[in-house]
């Protein structure tokens, strides 16, 4: 087998930024890895791909799909070729995310307290009050250290000139970090020796930093607070992540039914009676957290949790009500927030976004719908969106009707030609589009971002949608040391 085939058939789209190739030569930061890969035969690579799948399966890094009464274990597709980010690119990203997160935290504190940003006319009041994730229950409640966003998974993409854009701020219960950690472990196994010789920065600090921050959130400032990770349970598609994080941090993994609130304090039911809980890292969404306050039918939450929270007897991470800051309509105002709260120019750009609630912007979008992607402001995971370039006329018509019923619930963005990276498919490298989700951790001592993140990849040829629910996969993400 001729190993050269691996690269020779790599066809880069002219209107797309490819992270490995630049004018038919390999960018410096990819050279070492490509050299390494070229020494391997197709057979070797296929074996490694198979080995990776087996490792995921055996470790139970799977999610369960239920059909006809029985569960089928699936793994999230993993591409074995790492995605590489240079240290200067990373510095830029890191600075940009820290700046943005700082402003978003100020925004949440402001919006749930004095609301200066509304009074000063930077964000219109109706944008806030029409947002379903704005929770009055959080009004005038001082959260510990004024931190609302303890964990953020901010999505970045690169346009055809290679510059980074913020696509989405995930400030509620961002998931996927276990894949950042697990993908790295898999790379260690399938490409022995490659990591140390490639000067790749480690991501293993993540659980330790998160744990340290959780400890510092404890309302009772004792040395050994009881911290729990609240999961919706084994049927949740991110359950593997919940167990992984609980294990790596050595905290208790609990379900709603393990907890009980008595006299505004939260307890867990143990084999030797009730034990008070100090910090809850919850992976249950706001609306299911407390059936007394939110969805009364929720079996995932704990009755009375919000009262315990508001009494200051338990810390909840991330804070409740963050959805008002990562709503897709509020997103438009983040650059203004950065200027307003920090008096700085935004480092990372927003993708231009049109509010369909505004008549002239909606008209513009409808006119240019082939170049637009329209999204619902309160949906995520790639659901409920319309890709103007790929939709049929009928689909567009139906979608327009839906928009007109409630225009505030929709935004539109020009379709960005996401950057491509090499993926190993059918015995050769082919370019596929990616995004990047680094995980930022916010504690009393500031914001820390482990050098890495989750690279999601649209595995279907030409596809721009990277969400796992829409046929996306993931890659190990390398940040190189300077």
């Amino acid at each position: 087998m001729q190993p050269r085939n691996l690269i020779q058939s790599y066809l880069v789209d002219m209107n797309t930024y490819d992270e490995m190739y630049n004018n038919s030569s390999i960018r410096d930061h990819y050279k070492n890895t490509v050299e390494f890969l070229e020494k391997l035969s197709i057979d070797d690579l296929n074996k490694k791909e198979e080995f990776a799948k087996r490792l995921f399966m055996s470790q139970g890094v799977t999610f369960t799909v239920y059909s006809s009464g029985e569960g089928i274990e699936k793994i999230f597709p993993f591409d074995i070729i790492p995605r590489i980010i240079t240290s200067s690119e990373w510095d830029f990203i890191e600075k940009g995310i820290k700046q943005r997160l700082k402003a978003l935290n100020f925004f949440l504190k402001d919006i749930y307290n004095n609301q200066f940003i509304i009074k000063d006319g930077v964000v219109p009041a109706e944008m806030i009050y029409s947002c379903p994730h704005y929770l009055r229950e959080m009004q005038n409640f001082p959260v510990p250290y004024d931190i609302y966003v303890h964990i953020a998974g901010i999505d970045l993409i690169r346009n055809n000139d290679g510059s980074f854009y913020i696509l989405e701020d995930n400030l509620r219960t961002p998931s996927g970090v276990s894949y950042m950690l697990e993908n790295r472990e898999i790379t260690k196994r399938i490409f022995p020796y490659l990591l140390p010789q490639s000067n790749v920065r480690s991501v293993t600090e993540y659980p330790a930093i998160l744990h340290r921050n959780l400890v510092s959130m404890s309302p009772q400032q004792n040395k050994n607070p009881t911290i729990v990770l609240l999961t919706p349970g084994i049927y949740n598609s991110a359950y593997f992540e919940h167990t992984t994080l609980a294990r790596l941090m050595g905290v208790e993994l609990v379900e709603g039914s393990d907890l009980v609130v008595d006299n505004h304090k939260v307890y867990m039911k143990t084999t030797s009676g009730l034990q008070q809980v100090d910090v809850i890292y919850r992976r249950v969404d706001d609306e299911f957290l407390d059936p007394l306050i939110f969805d009364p039918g929720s079996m995932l939450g704990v009755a009375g949790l919000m009262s315990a929270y508001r009494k200051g007897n338990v810390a909840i991470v991330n804070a409740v009500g963050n959805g008002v800051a990562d709503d897709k309509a509020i997103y438009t105002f983040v650059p203004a927030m950065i200027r307003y709260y920090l008096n700085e120019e935004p480092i990372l750009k927003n993708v231009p976004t049109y509010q369909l609630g505004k008549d002239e912007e909606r008209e513009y979008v409808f006119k240019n719908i082939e170049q637009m992607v329209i999204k619902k402001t309160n949906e995520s995971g790639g659901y409920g969106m319309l890709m103007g370039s790929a939709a049929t006329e009928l689909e567009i018509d139906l979608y327009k009707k839906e928009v007109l019923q409630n225009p505030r619930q929709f935004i539109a963005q020009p379709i960005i030609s996401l950057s491509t990276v090499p993926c190993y498919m059918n015995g050769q490298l082919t370019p596929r589009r990616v995004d990047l989700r680094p995980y930022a951790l916010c504690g009393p001592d500031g914001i820390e971002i482990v050098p890495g993140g989750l690279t999601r990849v649209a595995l279907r040829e030409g596809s721009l949608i990277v969400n796992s629910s829409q046929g996306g996969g993931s890659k190990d993400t390398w940040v190189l040391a300077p």
Partner: protein
Amino acid sequence: MLSRVADSLFWMSRYMERTDGILRMLKINYASSQDDIQDFSWKPILKIFTFLNDESANALAHDTRGVLKYMLIGKDNDNSVLNIVTLARENGRSVQDHITKEMWQCINDFYHIMRQDKLADMIQNEDPISTIDHLIKQELLYFGTTDVTMARGEGNSFINIGKFLERAIQSTDILDVKFSDINYELDKITDTTYWKYLLKSISGYEIYLKTYRSGFEAKNVMEQIVLNEQFPRSVLYSINQLHRYFERLKNDRNQNEFHQIDFMIGKIKSQVKFSTSDSIINDGLHHFLNETKIRLFEIGNQLNQNYFAHA
């Protein structure tokens, strides 16, 4: 430890122990079925390990491949190895942060092996002993991994409580069914191979040969399976171990709950320990086994209430 976690560890362990029992039973009875024994019937096995009624059990009793399929991978059999391993895995999955990663991978691998399509093919077309041995190895790997990696804390205690409670119930059940087959008439002379295969199926053949020099006698077989403290599958050994691990749960915060169950285990332990094969026969073997079983079930129920928050 969370009550839910203790509950899951307990059941994960019970299911793994049950799997082990079923696999050994199947292996030896299959061998026995090939040993030129006229009219070999699977009925006792089906009575012990499945919920089939008499009619269905009779229908299946002489179909060895059918029984293997039903007991190993029968989806409609709640006690098939496939279904039990699935349950063990579900329990293990929800307590992954309380067992070691190695244990989880071991149970998870076992589960994936049970789900392979080729297993049905192997049962149909290949040597069943090899197939069952392959599965027993997974089971042994689990026991070994647990022993070598699991921290000796509360979790380990619940794992062992589940394991030995299950084993005590299983041994009692096996004896009861095997002796009901001969109407509890211990002096009824039957083919000695009957006892030989029973002993082999619970790994008690060699120890029997070393203990009793006079050949196979029903009374001795019963004595070994109930009373021999050195035999790891005897009722007494299992109850001793159950007690040993239960005693480790004692702490200052749950004294009442602890003493209630400690009393129950202590009582059944004394009742078995201070029996002899003669006294058991005098009281009636079935009566003795049935009483023992009821006490063991009661202990399980009380654990549910006092430790697993299923009040």
